């Protein structure tokens, strides 16, 4: 056997059992690097507050959700173990599938529309307008305002009889061949999800645009100079320089909004003051929290709600894994 490092071997080779005992002896662990152990003690003291809080309110409930989901868990004990009955209840509940469908419908439109408008807005902001900071602020206001206050004004604007939106639509009737009847945005089940989508796009577009704008401002001028030398038009430059170099931010925004939209809840309950007409705007998180008995004065079934939470985690987990694979494969431009 060749000693690759060529260094002197430390000490005589001990019998096997002695080496095992040495490796298992904590005193030896300490002796190997005493400074590391002393510093570890201090470090864990610094980490202690964070560890305690995360332990109680993040790590423990994460596992506890799986545990609770296996029990029939009402307000008062007894809380018997019932295996996977909560899951089979959910999978056999038509309202779960409806909630899933509503959520998909909402996500599949909200995410691309928000992203598209955000790119558009970021591009325009990047042109360096005179009123840049005013424009940026006006796009940011919707994001920082509490959703409840936002939802209240939209509830008012969606009002079928006196709402601003139906009024503006009615102005279009003055054009030839156009006839728009007033829409019962919040009372007609067909319009529940569209009403929710409009509110959400309005609420999030500015936030996404600011992130994309920062990405655009980070692109080095030399790429644009090169494009100019090659005689590229403004649109060509945007399509072949800006967009490809923006992929890290685009993916970030895409995934954040995908995951965020899946968890939509506050917008629903505040806009409709409930799950919408005939539960037509009930989403996954709404469905879960309804089973918890804390909203809509529903009966408390914490076991079912926990099972729903686990299913939600499954969906988000798949999305996150997908994001990680795609990011590693695709986003390596700069």
């Amino acid at each position: 056997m060749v000693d690759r490092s060529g260094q002197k071997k430390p000490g005589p080779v001990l019998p096997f059992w002695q080496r095992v005992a040495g490796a298992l002896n904590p005193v030896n662990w300490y002796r190997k690097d005493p400074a590391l152990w002393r510093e570890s003690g201090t470090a864990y003291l610094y980490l202690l507050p964070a560890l305690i809080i995360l332990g109680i309110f993040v790590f423990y409930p994460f596992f506890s959700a799986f545990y609770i989901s296996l029990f029939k868990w009402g307000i008062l004990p007894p809380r018997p173990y019932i295996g996977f009955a909560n899951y089979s209840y959910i999978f056999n509940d038509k309202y779960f599938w409806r909630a899933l469908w509503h959520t998909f419908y909402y996500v599949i439109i909200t995410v691309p529309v928000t992203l598209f408008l955000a790119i558009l807005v970021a591009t325009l902001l990047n042109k360096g307008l005179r009123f840049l900071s005013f424009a940026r602020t006006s796009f940011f206001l919707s994001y920082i305002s509490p959703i409840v206050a936002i939802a209240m004004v939209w509830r008012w604007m969606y009002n079928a009889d006196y709402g601003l939106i139906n009024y503006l639509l009615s102005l279009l009737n003055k054009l030839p061949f156009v006839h728009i009847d007033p829409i019962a945005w919040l009372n007609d089940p067909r319009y529940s999800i569209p009403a929710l989508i409009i509110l959400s796009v309005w609420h999030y577009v500015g936030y996404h645009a600011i992130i994309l704008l920062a990405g655009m401002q980070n692109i080095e001028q030399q790429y644009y100079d090169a494009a100019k030398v090659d005689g590229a038009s403004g649109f060509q430059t945007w399509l072949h320089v800006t967009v490809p170099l923006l992929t890290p931010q685009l993916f970030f925004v895409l995934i954040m909004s995908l995951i965020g939209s899946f968890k939509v809840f506050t917008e629903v309950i505040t806009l409709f003051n409930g799950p919408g007409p005939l539960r037509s705007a009930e989403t996954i998180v709404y469905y879960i929290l309804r089973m918890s008995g804390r909203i809509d004065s529903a009966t408390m079934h914490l076991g079912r709600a926990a099972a729903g939470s686990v299913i939600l985690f499954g969906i988000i987990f798949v999305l996150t894994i997908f994001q990680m694979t795609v990011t590693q494969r695709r986003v390596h431009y700069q």
Partner: protein
Amino acid sequence: MAVGCAIMLLPFFWMVTTSLKTEAGAMRMPPQWIPPEPQWENYVVAWNMAPFGRYFFNSFFIAIMCTIGEVITTILAAYAFAKMRFIGKEVLFAIFLGTLMIPGEMLLVPNYVTLTRLGWLDRYEGLIIPWIVSVFGIFLLRQFFRSIPDELWDAARIDGCSRLRYLWRVIVPLSKPAILTVALFKFLGSWNSFQWVLLMTNTESMRTVPVGLMTFSSDIGTAYHLLMAASVMAIVPILILFFFTQKQFIQGVARTGIK
């Protein structure tokens, strides 16, 4: 772009203008863009129709406590991760980052059970303590702390400075912008937080502004002029905060996209 700005600002304009109308004026068709006689007393009426004073106190108190708590725990943890050697560092950091993948909505039900057991339902403890740590904040500050050269610590140690003192006197002042960003986002998040407060409180006296506004809206029915006045009141504190710290806010958001 002008159209875009108009669409973004129209709901805010409509909120303010409605809040200054009479009930009949709000229901007029075609709508009045500017009310002929601004009804400022709508704000007084709305304020007195629900315990908004209490709601505002709760919101401010909770947001401030959450922010202070979070800044402390986050600075300590971020410092350990950025500048100290300890056993299990990589594993622990990976676990911390892993928690970012857990949707908060998944934890609501088990946390409700925990708060019930602790007797923290409907109490400030339950609204503050679970929120005084943010993994994202730890991550952000760690990145910032790492950029501070270690020579400073060596010099301070020779002068007999303790770690805690060094952290407080050197690292924290040097990292003010990053800490301010973390604090701002915590305050904003806490002020706007809705889901948690809705689930973890039962009584009126523990409600915050958003949840109070929500119950107010179901109590008053169609008095939209008063509802809009209350909504304006809920937004104003955030607006004031935003206008004073706009730069930090926008940089903070921008930074989340560029890693």
